[in-house]
């Protein structure tokens, strides 16, 4: 493989809410006192309006920051919790990112290693364009289950292509074994798992070292030379045990982010890889081993170009955008684990007019507005006539995406009347830097922490759930920076 081919950039998104595991344990102690043993740290918890697609979009935006999006020619999106069984989930992400339509996309699923497998496949791609791999997960868990403790919601993205890579792939191996540690059958909401001791001893500790050994051998790399070992598993001590069995130094074992985020499923291998790249120095070797009905092993060597990428610290940054949540009941409600009385206002039909959505997809999904060629006025949404009363020119606007434009709050309210899954609902008018304004839903606002002039950024979020038809409507919301 040539020297200019490799990882160009990485991105991450972990939802801002972090559910305290202690809250889970306390609420369930009457039923499952054993959970107290897991009640350390916090797990990432998607807000009510975040799902696998919205998190993927944010991770991809983080990854593509400062890059020309026109270079992306391929996109694979990995998850086992896609909102759509039949609608290209990657296509939704692509539309939100305003990627060009001459784009090859694929949804990868079926296993917790799908994210790493997608990344491996990206390295095997012969097309010349940049390849964006994004993985995102939001798994449901039954109340009082160990999974509820282990899992976390989150997403990560890796851009592979030619240029000045921050890391090059120097070895890989795919091992496929139908080892069913857990499964989720068609239409099931929850995983069904087998005994943890068996999974650790017969699964991780046997399958993973074997796969690592094969990868290292073919790359002619010694296990001692590995400086960062990413084992995306939050079961206790698995990373260390696998490292020992594979001959990798104990100090190379990376933090599995269990304490600060939880296991983000298909995204976790990429999240840990991105995290490792934050700390990496030129020449470091990063080994990623993703377990799931076999094992995907990826071996990277860090290049001299790392310093700039490392400085961005995308994982640390998203982890730092954090709010402690100790209300376990809210977590249950957001995940529909308990059924709240939402009231009659929630019953309004949320059907999305697909013809209209298609005609307006750039506006709605990509937040593309216009800039008038005659008077320069920036406006969202685009109208046939320019909104400037001194201009009103017809069809005079060039496309102008607003999703990355900073904004400030001009007016706002906290509405307790409207139907919201997280009342009171904050919304108001924001002004975009350079022109344009919109009355928008707000996201991630802490009660009482809103004021005129507050800086905001756009985030891709769920607008409405159409439960009657299984559709999800997306749009952009303004969130405090």
């Amino acid at each position, binding site marked *: 493989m040539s020297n200019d081919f490799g990882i160009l950039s990485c991105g991450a998104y972990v939802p801002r809410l972090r559910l305290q595991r202690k809250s889970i344990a306390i609420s369930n102690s009457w039923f499952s006192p054993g959970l107290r043993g897991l009640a350390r740290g916090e797990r990432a918890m998607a807000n009510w309006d975040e799902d696998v697609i919205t998190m993927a979009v944010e991770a991809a935006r983080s990854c593509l920051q400062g890059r020309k999006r026109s270079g992306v020619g391929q996109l694979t999106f990995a998850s086992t919790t896609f909102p759509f069984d039949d609608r290209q989930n990657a296509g939704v992400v692509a539309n939100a990112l305003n990627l060009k339509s001459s784009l090859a996309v694929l949804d990868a699923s079926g296993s917790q290693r799908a994210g790493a497998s997608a990344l491996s496949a990206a390295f095997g791609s012969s097309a010349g364009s940049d390849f964006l791999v994004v993985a995102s997960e939001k798994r449901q868990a039954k109340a009082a289950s160990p999974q509820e403790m282990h899992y976390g919601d989150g997403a990560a993205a890796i851009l592979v292509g030619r240029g000045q890579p921050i890391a090059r792939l120097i070895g890989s191996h795919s091992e496929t074994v139908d080892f069913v540690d857990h499964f989720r059958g068609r239409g099931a909401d929850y995983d069904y798992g087998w005994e943890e001791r068996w999974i650790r001893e017969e699964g991780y500790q046997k399958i993973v070292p074997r796969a690592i050994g094969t990868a290292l051998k073919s790359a002619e790399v010694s296990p001692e030379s590995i400086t960062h070992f990413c084992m995306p598993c939050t079961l206790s001590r698995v990373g260390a045990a696998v490292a020992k069995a594979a001959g990798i130094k104990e100090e190379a074992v990376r933090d599995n982010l269990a304490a600060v985020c939880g296991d983000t499923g298909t995204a976790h291998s990429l999240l840990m890889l991105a995290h490792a790249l934050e700390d990496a120095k030129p020449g470091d070797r990063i080994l990623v081993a993703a377990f799931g009905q076999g094992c995907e092993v990826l071996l990277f060597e860090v290049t001299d170009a790392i310093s700039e990428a490392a400085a961005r610290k995308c994982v640390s940054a998203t982890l730092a955008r954090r709010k402690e949540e100790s209300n376990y009941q809210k977590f249950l409600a957001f995940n529909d684990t308990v059924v709240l009385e939402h*009231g*009659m*206002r929630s019953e*309004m039909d949320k059907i*999305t*007019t697909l013809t*209209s*959505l298609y005609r*307006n997809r750039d*506006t*709605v999904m990509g937040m593309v507005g216009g800039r008038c060629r005659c008077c320069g*006025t920036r*406006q*969202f*949404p685009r*109208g046939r006539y320019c*909104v*400037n*009363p001194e201009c009103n020119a017809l069809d005079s606007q060039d496309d102008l995406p607003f999703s990355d434009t900073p904004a400030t709050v*001009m*007016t*706002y*309210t*906290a*509405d*307790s*009347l*409207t*139907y*919201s899954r997280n009342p*009171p*609902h904050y*919304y*108001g*008018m924001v*002004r975009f830097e350079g*022109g*344009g*304004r*919109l*009355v*928008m*839903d707000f996201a991630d606002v802490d009660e009482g922490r809103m004021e*005129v*002039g507050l800086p905001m950024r756009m985030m891709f979020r769920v*607008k*409405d759930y159409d439960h009657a038809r299984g559709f999800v*409507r997306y*749009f952009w919301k303004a969130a405090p920076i």
Partner: protein
Amino acid sequence: MATGIRDKVVILGMGCSKFGERWDCNAEDLMVEAFEECLKDAGVERKQIEAAWFGTAADEVNVGKSGTPLAVTLRLPYIPVTRVENFCATGTEAFRGAVYAVASGAVDIALAFGVEKLKDTGYPGLPQFTRGTFNNQYWANMTAPGNFAQLASAYCAKYGVDPKELKRAMAHISVKSHANGSRNPKAHLRNRITEEDVLNAPMVAEPLGLYDCCGVSDGAACAIVTTPDIARALGKKDLVSVKAVQLAVSNGEEAYFDKWDGSYVATTRAAAKRAYREAGIDDPRSQLSLIDVHDCFSVTELVTMEDLGISQDGKAIGDVLDGFYDADGGIPCQIDGGLKCFGHPVGASGLRMLYEMNLQISGRAGERQLSNPVLGLTHNLGGWPSQNVSAVTIVGAYGA
């Protein structure tokens, strides 16, 4: 050059049902209640009505679309009936249609009608309105109180007002309207309240609490209009004539162009300016005898005082707290209780305001009668501050 409609059309008669939670009534019952009063007041028979404008806003409840609900209920004899809907300005819009029909000479006698049966939704507050297939996809998840509440944040930011001071003025507005409404037998809410009640009420949409919001009511109101000559021929004296009816509709400028600052309603300013010109008024503060404005929320009433040019920009709080708009103040506002207490059956509200003006100017307002009012203004506003329909109507003693 258009001459406007000043004194070309007079109110022959009006009717208004009792507003409120009329659980026992269909919309049709409310319509008949208002219509019977209106026919008696006008002194005509239904067959003399040559055209009608029918205002209803909410398709989601109420009577459905088209002019047929009015024609069928009132058994109108195959006359043109135009259904109009223009948000909360629907009632005034119906009035405008009827007035223009008479002013144009197309008909001699026309009917303007508004009705809304809101209390069939099963939940408090206004019904949820459909918004159009595209708007649904990007408009905020907003309600009427949430939209108008935003005036407060922008107003305080613009004038450097302490939100507590604004809230106190808003409370005064509601206390005044309750005091007025308590004297009106047709009003929905007839209880007196205190400033403390307002300040301590549960929050609906910050900073609007329960007592900052108008009543959600069932009701109907209507007007029969004709020319001054015909009215006189029918034996009418002390005619109340239409001085101006103006409407202004947002064109996206407030919502999408970087000029409007969120602290006022631009359409009200445009409509008021045109209405004053049409009515020949150059100093509204000294010339208007009384006003009934669209106080859907207390803060709306407050900024409307500035939008109508009665209070100076940034000075409405002072005028309100000084009692300028109280029943015994310089310009009594909401003497009938306003939307706040008379209630707000959307399609009927604009006509309900005119009903009170007609009573006051013709000296028939009973316990609420003001001393010799000559010119009255009504203001009807629908939508939300950044995108709305605003109507300003001025009526008064014929020839005044």
